[in-house]
């Protein structure tokens, strides 16, 4: 039985940065992944001439080489920047309501304010004030919370203490009257998972602030390039990885991790496991009930499974311009009723808001010459899919996809006639490849009660650590960061023992 300093379960974003951080520190690490490629969501697949990006739409927190954001600093530290080629996007997004409304916001404060003022002259004065709040709040949150000011207090950082838990919708209502303006400003919700009515302003503000300040990024080769680079560096540091081989059991004795049994039946000794699987998979299926301390799962009772997604991946036999696609990031909307849109996430109804990303607009090399690709995604819970009998699964998939394609056609009428390859991913597809209950792509729902402040502590298995969206925020930057943080916690505990 071989021994390892740590076994990492799952090669998603958090598993990869976690494994690499440990290997870079000279630890002997085994990385297990049940799929045959690294990345989890951060992956790609090939159909015909196209390599489709699965999940990355806009990478946050990168910043430029001169003005690096927190994620660039981490990737620098991990030693993979020379293998990757990042592409900045100049615009935040376009919000397009076919026949009614069209606006494109720059990823730059003054430009965005000006565009909004031109389009919403009646709210001319309130717009810059809202951006003042957005920026002042974010600066207070960064200085007070992220930089761990020991003197943090309500008096020193009043905006932070007033607004961190405030519903985004309420803040928008305080500033603006036009529901369309509020929808335009908060449209990222439809891609991050909680509608403005319930999204804490703290989460919203810091996200919009950092997309504007650090700009959204993509990278050559897509998110698979990032996953491959992380794995490559892990192997170069002496890490061992097994693919098509997940974990079957985490072994414990007296409340401490003692080893892992792999899917192939090999038992390996270790006293530390970093699980990039969901907390539910880890406690329910990788451990037996008597291994899980009382109260562990009870701490998750207040949580609900978060949304999955339905995505149409389309490869076109022409360039974006021919289809009328002029922006990389397009929110196509047919409503300003965000609550209704959110309610539709639990149904098979055609939805009011979706995100169409055409990578080739900002990176013409993304698809072969003379072609381009787009991903059209709307978030959706798995619930209605669980009610579809298996024999009707493909019919249901095409029916739902047809509705989405019609929405895309309303915005870009010529798309269907140019589609050369098309693939649809349902919540069941996400369940299949991620193994997450409900096919959840961001872990549990992220209402205010679910933010980092309220994460369950309580009885835990000694030596068991987590990384990924089930124990923090969802999305690329948060999950990549979480693996690194958990690995550092592991290294600290190793230094002590």
């Amino acid at each position: 039985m071989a021994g390892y300093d740590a076994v990492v379960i799952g090669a998603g974003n958090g598993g990869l940065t976690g494994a690499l951080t440990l290997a870079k520190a000279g630890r002997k690490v085994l990385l297990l992944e049940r799929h045959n490629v690294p990345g989890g969501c951060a992956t790609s697949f090939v159909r015909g001439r196209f390599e489709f990006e699965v999940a990355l739409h806009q990478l946050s927190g990168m910043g430029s080489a001169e003005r690096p954001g927190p994620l660039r600093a981490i990737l620098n530290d991990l030693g993979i920047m020379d293998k990757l080629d990042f592409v900045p996007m100049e615009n935040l997004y376009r919000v397009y309501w076919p026949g009614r409304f069209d606006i494109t916001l720059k990823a730059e404060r003054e430009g965005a304010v000006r565009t909004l003022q031109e389009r919403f002259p009646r709210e001319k004065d309130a717009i810059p004030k809202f951006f003042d709040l957005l920026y002042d709040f974010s600066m207070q949150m960064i200085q007070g919370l992220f930089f761990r000011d020991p003197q943090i207090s309500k008096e020193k950082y009043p905006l932070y203490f007033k607004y961190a838990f405030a519903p985004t919708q309420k803040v928008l209502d305080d500033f603006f009257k036009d529901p369309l303006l509020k929808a335009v400003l908060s449209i990222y919700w439809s891609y991050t998972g909680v509608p403005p009515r319930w999204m804490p302003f703290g989460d919203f503000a810091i996200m919009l602030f950092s997309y504007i300040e650090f700009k959204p990024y993509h990278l050559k080769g897509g998110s698979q390039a990032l996953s491959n680079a992380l794995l490559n560096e892990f192997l170069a540091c002496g890490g061992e990885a097994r693919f098509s081989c997940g974990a079957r059991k985490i072994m414990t004795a007296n409340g401490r991790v003692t080893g892992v049994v792999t899917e192939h039946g090999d038992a390996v000794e270790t006293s530390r496991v970093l699980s990039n699987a969901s907390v539910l998979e880890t406690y329910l299926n990788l451990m037996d009930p008597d291994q899980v301390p009382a109260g562990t799962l009870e701490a998750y009772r207040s949580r609900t499974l978060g949304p999955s997604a339905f995505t149409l991946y389309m490869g076109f036999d022409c360039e974006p311009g021919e289809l009328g696609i002029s922006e990389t990031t397009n929110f196509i909307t047919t409503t300003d009723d965000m609550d209704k849109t959110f309610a539709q996430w639990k149904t098979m109804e055609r939805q009011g808001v979706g995100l169409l990303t055409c990578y080739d607009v900002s990176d013409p090399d993304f698809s072969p010459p003379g072609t381009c690709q787009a991903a059209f995604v709307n978030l959706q819970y798995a619930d209605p899919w669980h009610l579809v009998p298996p024999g009707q699964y493909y019919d249901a998939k095409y029916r739902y996809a047809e509705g989405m394609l019609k929405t895309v056609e309303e915005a870009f009428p010529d798309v269907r006639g140019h589609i050369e390859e098309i693939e649809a991913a349902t919540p069941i597809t996400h369940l299949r490849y991620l193994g997450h209950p409900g096919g959840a792509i961001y872990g549990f729902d992220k209402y205010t009660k679910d933010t980092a402040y309220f994460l369950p502590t309580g009885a835990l298995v000694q030596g068991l650590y987590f990384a990924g969206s089930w124990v923090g925020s969802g999305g690329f930057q948060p999950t990549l960061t979480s693996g690194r943080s958990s690995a550092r916690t592991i290294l600290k505990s190793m230094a002590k023992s």
Partner: protein
Amino acid sequence: MSLKDVMKDIEGYQEIVREIDVLNKYGTDYTAQKGQARQVLDLIHPKKLDLKVSEIIEETASTKTLRLVPANGCLPPFQAGQYLNLVVSAGGIVTSRDYSISSPPNQTAYYDITVRRIDDGFVSDFLLDTVGVGDAFETSAPAGNFFHNPLIHGDDLVFLAGGSGVTPFMSMIREAADRGTNRKIHLIYGSRSTDDVIFSDEIAAICARHPRIAWTLVVSEPPAGYAGRTGFITAGLMHDVLGGSLEGKTFFLCGPEAMYAFCRDELRKMGIPGRRIRVEMYGPPRDVSAQPGWPAGKNRDAVVKVALTDGRSIEAHAGEPLMNSLERAGIVIPALCRSGECSLCRTKLLKGEVFQPEGVKLRKSDIQFGYIHPCMAYPLSDLEIMLL
């Protein structure tokens, strides 16, 4: 001050704590969900299937259908045109082969695979000569991307089949007939002779019953006095048989290697855009050294050494896919499409050089980081590989 202390002063904190308290009482008991995700998947995307032969149907002198039923549980749904990867242990070697399902998806009790004897085909020999009713197989779940996609392929379909390449079309035709779909189908079926045409009676019967389904048999080596269509599936023949406008038609192509290049050229001559042509993959070429891009002067019979990072070492032939050489040495790696497409066998090449024919679908960053698809990678020199 820790986060936990700070947050008590944030407006709204008390309400959230109360909300959590209530939910801790009335929220979700996740212990009840143990194993649930896997159960959902087992019905739609099981990891593998255990099947057994319930019946063997003699189709023609060269061809049999093996009817496969689940050894336990039920069969997952599939899309007409998809295939199974069948694991076989023959002649002391564990390997696998892909067979299109010829039964329709609305038939949920069994999957049919239809096997024709091929020259030097030790797997087809085994399936035709050795396998009997009751024998068990492990297979993949149905897989593959050769199917009718209602989002873009329309209802006017032309199927170009060569020999046993008719099997996925049989599934599609049976489905259209059974379900009474709106699809207009014309099968153009190339066969070497007239006496070895798989499914000919059933196809004729379906066409007689369904005005929207038609077929044309094209015989390349006809007997003397044969009155039907002869030769190959040329542009002229297709224009003739299909008549009228080709606008809106989607062409599906499945058959032996030689037919692909030929028919693709013919379709191009007819001005059919690429998006209207769907081509099934066909596995390793008969002679890889005849493929475009094979380096001049390289001998396909050359024997090279392949070292694995775990210390093992095997011999491999340049003219044979690396996966087959590994299997011959008893090293079985994950396999599914065996045509370079699905990437399941993705392996890291540390040293040496391989040839991967046109059409092997590698991710850009997999090329950057040295990954190969051994099912369609041919060793041109001694290699060192890392099985992951």
